[in-house]
């Protein structure tokens, strides 16, 4: 597992590149790679902008049936999200923009877990499996 610090825009780019390499070596199709890296970009950006910076962990995983996959974990110690359900509906946003970061990312991956509480930071774990 690799751990990457997210403290700047450069770090978001680095996370993208790292995830792309991991996805490519795990046998994900081109479309699946693109989806995963795009989701990683969204979540890394969220960590930076809403979480005040944090960390991304990239791990290669194996399913019970023997399929390879990539697991990403984004964590920050920021203000947290008060209403998780609201955050996951399309169009929600606290900043300017289309507010698609979370709900959109969820559609791009196979597994999605969000944990957040006001004042206790945010943690997002996603998994994308190869077919």
């Amino acid at each position, binding site marked *: 597992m690799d751990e990457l610090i997210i403290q700047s825009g450069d770090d978001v780019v680095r996370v993208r590149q790292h995830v792309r390499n991991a996805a490519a070596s795990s046998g994900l199709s081109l*479309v699946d790679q693109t989806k995963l890296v795009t989701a990683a970009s969204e979540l890394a950006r969220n960590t930076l902008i809403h979480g005040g910076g944090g960390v991304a962990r990239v791990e290669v995983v194996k399913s019970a*049936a*023997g399929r390879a996959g990539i697991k990403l974990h984004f964590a920050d110690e920021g203000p947290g999200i008060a209403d998780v359900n609201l955050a996951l509906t399309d169009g929600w946003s606290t900043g300017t923009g289309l507010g698609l970061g979370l709900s959109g990312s969820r559609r791009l991956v196979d597994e999605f877990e969000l944990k957040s509480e006001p004042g206790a930071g945010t943690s997002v774990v996603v998994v994308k499996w190869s*077919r």
Partner: protein
Amino acid sequence: MDVGASQQRMAAFLRDNHDKIVGSWSDLVAAGLRGRTSPQEARRQLEDLYALVIRELSGTDENASGELRAVLDELSRNRARDGFTPSETALSVFSLKDAVYELVAESAELVPEYLAFSRAVDDLGLRTFEAFSAAREQIITDQTTSMMELSTPVVRLWDGIIAVPLVGTLDSARTQLVMEKLLDTLVASGAEHAVIDITGVPTVDTEVAQHLLKTVSAARLLGAECTISGIRPQVAQTIVSLGIEFGDIATKATLADALALALKHAGLKVVPA
């Protein structure tokens, strides 16, 4: 009882009685496979397995576990390929217990160690079953993928006009494949018009409609306009009753109608020869 020490005693026992046990095991396996393998051939396959079992029990080698499982998986795959049933393969593994028990019963020592060992061998035997299942699953998945590929052609109707005749249900997996094929064809052909024919799609519910809308959106991002054709009367009624809106996407009853529309948009006209 210290698990580690117990296992090591078992490992030592297996080492000391190597020839006897492996010989017995090979005979049992050959007998179980009803003559399709000779004891000598069986022995060759089992020697590696035996050595790895001892290594894992000794507890000194971290890699032993992984290697043991890998060899078992390989054995399962080969057996499956050679036409043996998963039970036959599992029984081959289980008969190691019988081979060991013969000797343990004689000396009456190591009974508690034997029990733990027996459980461990059970796990290994079950694993061969899992490996067999997994291999079958993979074959099914591969065949499903093949079938989907074959039933999702993208054809060229005319210069700049391509068609995607869909036959069968349009689930998310199929939609992904349709989108990929359609978009790749758009890039390769430079077509600006696509007709998605759903005559062969049995039911059009909200989910199918969403898949169609997604496909059209994706095609638009590549500069192509889509027409959906093959709307049967019952399907039309279902769509309206479900409140599905196709917005600004043109829909036609038949592929012919859609082709006429695409030709018109492309600035082409069909005239008598």
